[in-house]
């Protein structure tokens, strides 16, 4: 039982981690709170669904397309909405993505209806029994995707010129401009990548989730607390924060009471805000 709960907690954690990293990236670079990150995930789920509907492709086969589409979608959103909001007052910068999230949710209700959808007949399915632990292959897809995406993100941010430019911009925008980095481009790419991460996550989630247009909202609170836990702006911290959230979610739910798990999460949020406002890994 314990191992099962641990495994499930880590699985859940990978979803929260993916969300949290997207939020942390956008916050770190441009100080925008990406409330719409969960909705991006939702949009990715529907893109996967529609690709499957039209071509019969498995979510795994569709994933590269979904990631690229979401990256471009992110860039479009940045250019049409975020870039303009950044020129406006701080309050509208904070709230613009909130409004965007609502537009996406309601837009999807108009486009696809409010019913629950799922992608049928997945390529990988079933359960592996490892002793007392039942490992769902569908959830494995999610775990592997999350790990690969995290790995790629770290490689990109630390090893590539563009990644370093984004980091430099997030650490000091003025200096980044002076060494020749086009900071507007860095912002745009960062926002696109954040959407692409949600793309990978949402696509993989269709493996083990049923979804409807408002699914993103429920995940957001966990994503945000994970970011607070990890320290705003630190992508590695956000990943660990996400994993911790998954563990808390499952352990309080299973061993204490299901009713306590949201309380536990909220209490932890308050504790962080009170005693460690910069997060476990923030400086």
């Amino acid at each position: 039982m314990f191992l099962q709960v641990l495994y499930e907690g880590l699985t859940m954690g990978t979803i929260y981690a993916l969300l949290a990293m997207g939020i942390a990236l956008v916050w770190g670079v441009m100080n925008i709170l990406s409330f719409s990150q969960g909705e991006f995930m939702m949009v990715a789920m529907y893109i996967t669904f529609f690709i499957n509907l039209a071509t019969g492709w498995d979510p795994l086969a569709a994933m590269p397309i979904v990631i690229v589409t979401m990256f471009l979608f992110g860039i479009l959103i940045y250019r049409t909405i975020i870039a303009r909001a950044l020129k406006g007052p701080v309050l509208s910068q904070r709230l613009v993505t909130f409004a965007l999230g609502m537009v996406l949710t309601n837009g999807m209700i108009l486009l696809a209806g409010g019913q629950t959808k799922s992608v049928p007949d997945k390529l990988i399915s079933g359960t592996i029994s490892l002793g007392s632990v039942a490992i769902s292959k569908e959830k494995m897809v999610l775990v592997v995707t999350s790990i690969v995406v995290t790995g790629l993100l770290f490689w990109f941010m630390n090893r590539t010129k563009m990644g370093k430019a984004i980091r430099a911009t997030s650490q000091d925008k003025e200096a980044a401009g002076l060494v020749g980095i086009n900071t507007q481009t860095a912002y745009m790419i960062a926002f696109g990548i954040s959407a692409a991460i949600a793309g990978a996550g949402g696509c993989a989630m269709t493996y083990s989730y049923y979804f409807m247009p408002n699914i993103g909202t429920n995940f957001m609170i966990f994503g945000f607390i994970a970011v607070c836990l990890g320290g705003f702006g630190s992508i590695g911290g956000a990943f660990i924060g996400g994993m911790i959230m998954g563990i808390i979610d499952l352990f309080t739910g299973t061993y204490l009471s299901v009713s306590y798990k949201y309380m536990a999460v909220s209490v932890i949020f308050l504790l962080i805000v009170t005693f460690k406002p910069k997060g476990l890994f923030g400086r």
Partner: protein
Amino acid sequence: MLVVKDLVSGYSKMPAIHGVSFKVEKGQVVAILGSNGAGKTTTLKTVMGVLPAMSGSITYKGESLIGVPSHKMVQKGLSMVPEGRHLFPKMSIYDNLMMGAYSVKDKGSIEKKLETIYEIFPILAERKAQLAGTMSGGEQQMVAIGRALMCNPELLILDEPSLGIMPKLVDEIFEFIKKINKEMGVTIVIIEQNAEKTLAFADYAYVISEGQTVIEGTGEALMKDDQVQKVYLGMD
């Protein structure tokens, strides 16, 4: 090389400078002096495209720099060490230096440049893996200068390089600047409050007061001008 004429600029539509003019010839060290809040930094940030010019002209090698965004400046041969150093604190010294070469395409020349900088500042080679944010002020200044040199600039702008640095290191920093000018042939514009030390090695200097150029002359001449010393530079 660089000609600034009647420049007006400032933050969010409120001009902080109202007519600054100066000229920099190739190979020179030009100092821009003035008390705190005189408009020195505003002037040079406007030259670098960090702030937009409201009126006046900036010409570099015969080409206007008005409207050129700051990230295009390094390609034109201008580089700046901003006040307060503005390093990337969570990056290593090596990465900070490499970010300086962001716009340089030729990999070989980057390597060569890096070696040159390690020669001038051997301590940077020793500590290349250390995070920039964890270094002392003087060391950070070396990184900032090193980073600004990585793009092979023809003109280097230094904004208050001695600010916040231990007095005994200040001389050293000035030595480095001289070296960069003499040995590497980089033209230098330097903003300083430390007027005495600056005038000692500047070829030419301008004094800015209340957003305007008020006096200019060779370093030597201004050093001897009592009025300049008292009124504008606050020296005894």
